[in-house]
């Protein structure tokens, strides 16, 4: 999978590139809008991560020109502006998702995976982790072929783990993904929800899916 990262801030593109490469993606970077536009037209690119504030031409223009050139590669917008107008404008121009800085890498990765899965069609709409099967379209969850009822938040939590499979995620990233409102990191909020999820998916000690990373967060292990 090849991802194009159009971002002028070298340090930002640096850690995103390294993080994505760790997840075995091929990452190409462009530092300004014009170069990004040119590279984005290449058919081998599977996903474009696009910053809005760019030298040369700005991100929204890059997006518009890509869509005008009939390039339908999924685009994930990154921006420091979070005015709703911009968000709606970006989505109207054909962006597929939108992320406001600062974001956690886990969140970025989750969205990247969701977008790539959506574009590579149905067969990957079902995620399997050991004997846990999750239909990412219908939100149905099965373990050992037994259906499991999850609340919206519990499902969101599980999906976040699946999209970050085999990667440790910290509590703050989890909380930000599942709850939109301000979160006090001092509470054991996330732990309580994870324990509930664990109970529901019968996460027993001998066949554990969600592992605790001491002092940091959690990890969903597929092996």
């Amino acid at each position: 999978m090849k991802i194009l990262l159009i971002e002028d801030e070298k340090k930002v593109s640096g850690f995103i590139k390294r993080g994505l490469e760790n997840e075995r993606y091929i990452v190409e970077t462009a530092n300004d809008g014009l170069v990004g536009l040119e590279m984005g037209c290449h058919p081998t690119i599977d996903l474009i991560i696009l910053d809005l504030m760019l030298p040369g031409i700005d991100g929204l223009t890059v997006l518009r020109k890509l869509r005008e050139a009939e390039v339908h590669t999924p685009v994930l917008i990154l921006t420091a502006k979070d005015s709703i107008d911009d968000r709606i404008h970006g989505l109207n121009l054909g962006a597929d998702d939108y992320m406001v800085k600062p974001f956690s890498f886990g969140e970025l990765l989750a969205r990247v995976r969701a977008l790539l899965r959506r574009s590579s069609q149905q067969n990957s709409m079902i995620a399997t982790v050991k004997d846990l099967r999750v239909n990412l379209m219908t939100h149905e969850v099965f373990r050992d072929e037994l259906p499991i009822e999850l609340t919206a938040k519990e499902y969101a939590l599980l999906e976040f783990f699946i999209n970050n499979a085999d990667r440790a995620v910290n509590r703050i990233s989890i909380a930000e993904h599942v709850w939109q409102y301000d979160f006090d990191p001092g509470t054991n909020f996330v732990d309580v929800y994870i324990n509930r999820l664990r109970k529901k998916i019968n996460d027993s000690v001998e066949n554990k899916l969600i592992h605790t990373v001491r002092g940091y967060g959690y990890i969903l292990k597929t092996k």
Partner: protein
Amino acid sequence: MFRNFKTRISLWYTVLFSIILLVTLLLSYKIIGYQLKREIRSNLEAKTALVKRTLQGEYEEITEEHSEDETHKYAEKNIKEDNSEGISLLSSGHAGHRDKSIFNMIRLVTESADNNYAVFVFSGDNLTYITPKYSRLLGHISHLKSYSTPLQELDIEGVPFVVSKIKQPKFTIYLGYEMSALKSLEGRLRDIFLVIFPVSLLLSILCGMLVTQKTMDVIERIDSTAKSITSSNLSKRIAVPKGDDEISRLIGTLNSMIDRLESSFVQAKQFSQDAAHEIRTPLTIIRGEIEELIGKEGVDDRSILTLENVLEEVQYLSSISERLLMIHNMDTRNIKYHFEKINLSELMKEIYQDVQVLSMDKNISVELKVEEDITLDGSKELLSRLLWNLADNAVKYNKPGGSLWMQLSKQRNHINITISDTGIGIPEAEISKIFNRFYRVDKSRSRELGGSGLGLSICKWIAELHGGVIKVNSEEGIGSEFTIIL
């Protein structure tokens, strides 16, 4: 009393005006009286001089005007008339022809001008002549002889006179001028002034009120416009009237003050927005680098703990920058939030679940009472933030083992949301300020609990954005109750 500036100004105006009016009237009364009297006195002095000259044998000058015959005729005629009235004492023998003509001259001199002159002639102690018109004063003029000053004002039987004395070897002549006309003129003048004064005073009060009213109108217009200019409405200006007078200059000054205010407000807002934007990229980098570091193999547990703490602070900074931007959005009002139909009952239940988890540490019992299927057009993101902020506060400021109630009900057209707690409460003096930006009741404690002083002002804004209001009831030490009416 007289708190009203307008009343005070009118009062001052009236008092000053009435003093001026009173002084003017009194002065003109006095001056007019004085002038008239002076004129009378100088006339009398002139007549006296004339009579003196006549007596010194200079009456030829006068007779130039009247022929001897005419004078005689005139005198005889008058004497006859006098005689017929039985008053003249000239016929008492010892007055010669020359004397007679002198008397006639005196009469001619005095009576030709106007008939207010009186002549009294004494020969020794005997009154030898009196102007017929004043014969009624006959018995009352003896005291004249006691006066020696050249001009003397006196009353004779109630008739005011100014009298001059001409001493001759044979006679003493008194020339008198009756001042009744002057006195009655003065009386009339006084009457007129007594009418003018209250009328003018009344008019001045009315004028004063009118003038101050007009001035106040201008000031009130400035005031009401200035009042309508608030921090979110600084683009408004007071209308400047035509011309270059004090008022338009004052308005100009106020407007330029608002200009400066607006520009500094805009700068402050721009700064907070820019700052919030600017710190986002570095925050993203810090966060990304830390997360990457934590994920690496071979990092020891202590470092992970430290990094985790740093990460929490980064997250706190991010939420502050987010709130600052939200505050900016509140002010500019140019953001259209995406409103959709929201099941408020379900939203309350979701929040309730989270609050339950949150309250476990402090062993707080949370009670939920919702009516089913209450819906509302709104922004789910903002409404959950509103409910969460209030519930979060209700947990944070609660006592261990306390209670928290969440209620949702619908009454006719209103949706009522109540979130109440058994917490520390809000001091009465602080209640009005808690919705202010950056306001924190207990500064030291609030930061510890993650408060930035923006939460409640955001809550208020969200409630208002949804056409509602937010109210608070609180008693220190007992608890607080926040009610949102939508």
